[in-house]
């Protein structure tokens, strides 16, 4: 894949179009071609820029220089000076203080390119996912070979220093988990890849498994070597038929090449991987429920502690990581922890794969450094909203948070989000415009938890059911003011007393609604009106 060194963003909203932004885009494409920069510079548009007087506006990264207004005839000079010779053009830079202030958010990413940085998805779309030869041709297997030259302690040390945090949603430091399993007593240990990606709206793991299954196997080999395991499982949800087939083929090819099996590469190290297909239960993404499921039972989470690091699969020490976490391992081993820390923020290094969904123009999958803001995601990658104003985003499938518009400039990393009382979740970003009703959205999320609750512990089983019933009452116009206190009470009960993550996070959307959308909720209860007209309000 070609590395793009600069990115040109041109404002292309309705007002910019009136100021001939299309001609500016065409001029950029032409000038970039004339100077032979096609492989190095990417041109993209930003559809929503706010009410800015001087249009069209052009931002060039990584310098984050803002030029406005740019006329088509300025473009060849701008390309020659800034992109070809590498010096900014002060004469064309934005002068209007109002525009400068309003476009300030665009300069946040100064020094880094807002184009995607691919670590996890490095091979996706580049190699044939059914050919291990192509994988080897693209540095595949080198990380494992490098790891074999190191001591297991050193491998764990590198992962610890990289600061990699689990990408399944909770953000637990991977190195600490690895260390705990390595130090756990016992000869038999397991490495498990959690590919039960059941959070609605998340499909990053599916793309990784379908596009680059070998990297997962390589990462599991490295992990097994580091913690001293000789058997591994990949738990893939049953809905992902293609991913299942691809991983199956990958394992078969790896066995044929002797990359899995006994005495791998003559090192005396044995490791083999089995696939376990899920059968349709959201809760099996919870690590101890997943273990129960592999053992052949109902997927009901265990009581923790003891943690799987010491008492996991069949009571043996077990390392469980998410697909995306594993996909980060080989590049870290190959390039070192300092290289990894050059991406993202100090407390959450690296990149994150997000799935952008909902009311945006451009839906799909992106991999960007940690710490990007929601506003950037919506406007640069999502190419703006289809209509209306941004109202809220739902992160991380169901167990994430509802992010109100007021938090759209908070950097998206584990710590910044938890400071604001919200969570990043698994990486789904459901963007909702102002035609969506918050009560309806929360009711649907709660309904999901009510259906998927395993029923093992009371706070979750009763709490999800009661909250769903109350929210249904409110959405049908029978809400009472005391319902709010009742919801709060139920949420704190679920958060504090539930056995596993499902119950503990089931109340989060309700809490976010109470914190940020109280007026809309009150309108439902006091006035009996749904402001967006979505709730039935009988």
């Amino acid at each position, binding site marked *: 894949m070609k590395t793009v060194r600069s990115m040109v963003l041109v404002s292309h909203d309705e007002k910019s179009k009136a100021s001939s932004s299309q001609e500016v885009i065409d001029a950029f494409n032409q000038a970039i071609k004339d100077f032979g920069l096609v492989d190095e510079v990417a041109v993209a548009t930003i559809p929503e820029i706010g009410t800015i007087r001087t249009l069209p506006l052009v931002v060039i990264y990584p310098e984050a220089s803002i030029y406005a207004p740019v006329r088509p005839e300025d473009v060849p000079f701008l390309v020659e000076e800034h992109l070809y010779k590498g010096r900014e053009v002060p004469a064309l830079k934005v002068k209007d203080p109002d525009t400068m202030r309003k476009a300030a958010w665009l300069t946040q990413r100064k020094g880094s390119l807002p184009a995607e940085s691919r670590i996890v998805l490095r091979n996706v779309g580049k190699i044939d996912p059914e050919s291990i030869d192509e994988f080897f041709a693209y540095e595949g297997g080198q990380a494992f070979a490098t790891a074999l030259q190191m001591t297991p302690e050193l491998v764990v040390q590198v992962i610890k220093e990289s600061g990699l945090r689990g990408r399944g949603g909770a953000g637990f430091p991977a190195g600490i988990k690895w260390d705990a399993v390595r130090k756990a007593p016992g000869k038999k240990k397991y490495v498990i890849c959690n590919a039960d990606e059941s959070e609605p709206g998340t499909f990053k793991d599916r793309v990784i498994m379908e596009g680059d299954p070998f990297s997962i196997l390589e990462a599991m080999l490295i992990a097994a070597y580091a913690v001293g395991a000789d058997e591994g499982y990949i738990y893939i949800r049953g809905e992902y038929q293609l991913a299942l087939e691809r991983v199956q083929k990958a394992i078969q090819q790896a066995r044929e090449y002797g990359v899995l099996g006994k005495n791998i590469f003559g090192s005396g190290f044995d490791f083999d991987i089995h696939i376990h297909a899920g059968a*349709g239960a959201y809760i099996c993404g919870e690590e101890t429920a997943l273990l129960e499921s592999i053992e052949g039972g109902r997927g009901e989470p265990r009581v923790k502690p003891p943690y799987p690091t010491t008492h996991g699969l069949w009571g043996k020490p077990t390392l469980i990581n998410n697909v995306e976490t594993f996909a980060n391992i080989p590049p870290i081993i190959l390039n070192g922890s300092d290289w990894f820390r050059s991406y993202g923020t100090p407390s959450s290094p690296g990149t994150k794969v997000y*799935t952008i969904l909902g009311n945006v123009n451009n839906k799909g999958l992106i991999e960007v450094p940690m710490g990007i803001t929601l506003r950037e995601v919506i406007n640069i990658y999502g190419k703006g909203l289809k209509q209306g104003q941004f109202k809220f985003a739902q992160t991380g499938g169901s167990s994430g948070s509802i992010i109100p518009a007021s938090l759209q400039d908070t950097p998206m990393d584990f710590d910044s989000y938890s400071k604001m009382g919200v969570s990043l979740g698994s990486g789904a970003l459901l963007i909702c415009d102002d035609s969506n009703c918050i009560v309806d959205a929360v009711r*649907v999320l709660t309904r999901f938890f009510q259906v998927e609750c395993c029923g093992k512990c009371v706070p979750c089983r009763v709490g999800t059911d009661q909250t769903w019933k109350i929210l249904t009452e409110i959405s049908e116009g029978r809400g009472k003011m005391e319902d709010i206190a009742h919801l709060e009470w139920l949420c704190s009960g679920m958060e504090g007393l539930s056995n596993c993550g499902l119950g503990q996070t089931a109340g989060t959307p309700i809490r976010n609604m109470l914190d940020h959308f109280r007026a809309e909720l009150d309108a439902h209860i006091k006035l009996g009106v749904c402001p967006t007209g979505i709730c039935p309000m009988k």
Partner: protein
Amino acid sequence: MTLPTKQLDPLDNPRMRKIIDDTIAEYGDQNGALMVVLNHIQERIGFITKAMQAYIAKNLNVPVSKVHGVVSFYSFFTTEPRGKHVVKFCIGTACYVGGVSQLIDKAKQVLGVEPGQTTPDGLITLEVCRCVGACSQAPVVVVDDTNRGRVKPSQFGKILTDIQKSEAAA
């Protein structure tokens, strides 16, 4: 649910019984065999009746309660036969925002059955399913094992006629 003709339990059908026996023989010995065996039987026969659950329990040497517990826990396992074709609606959050509720209403109206039910001729079963991970295509309808994305309520009739046509051709 009414079936067009009374069906025998798969255990009484020699061909199906052989499938069950073979599956148990192949996977019965491995650790955590129960889920694997049930997955294969569900896939190849299409449902797991109470008699089958008891038979599997006996042959795997586990309590029937455990087998039933697993069958009733996971949404993939069904105890009754489905229609010849299964039309599933993804009810993930993205599909909900994408308007899957209107699609379900349309299906109910056209076929006269609720999700979870089969048409009287045994041809089509409607179901809702969990997120299929094709969220950028929302709303998604899964017809047998094929995902159909960005389905509008007006296009739903086409999906049904496609199924009926393929039946008529067969």
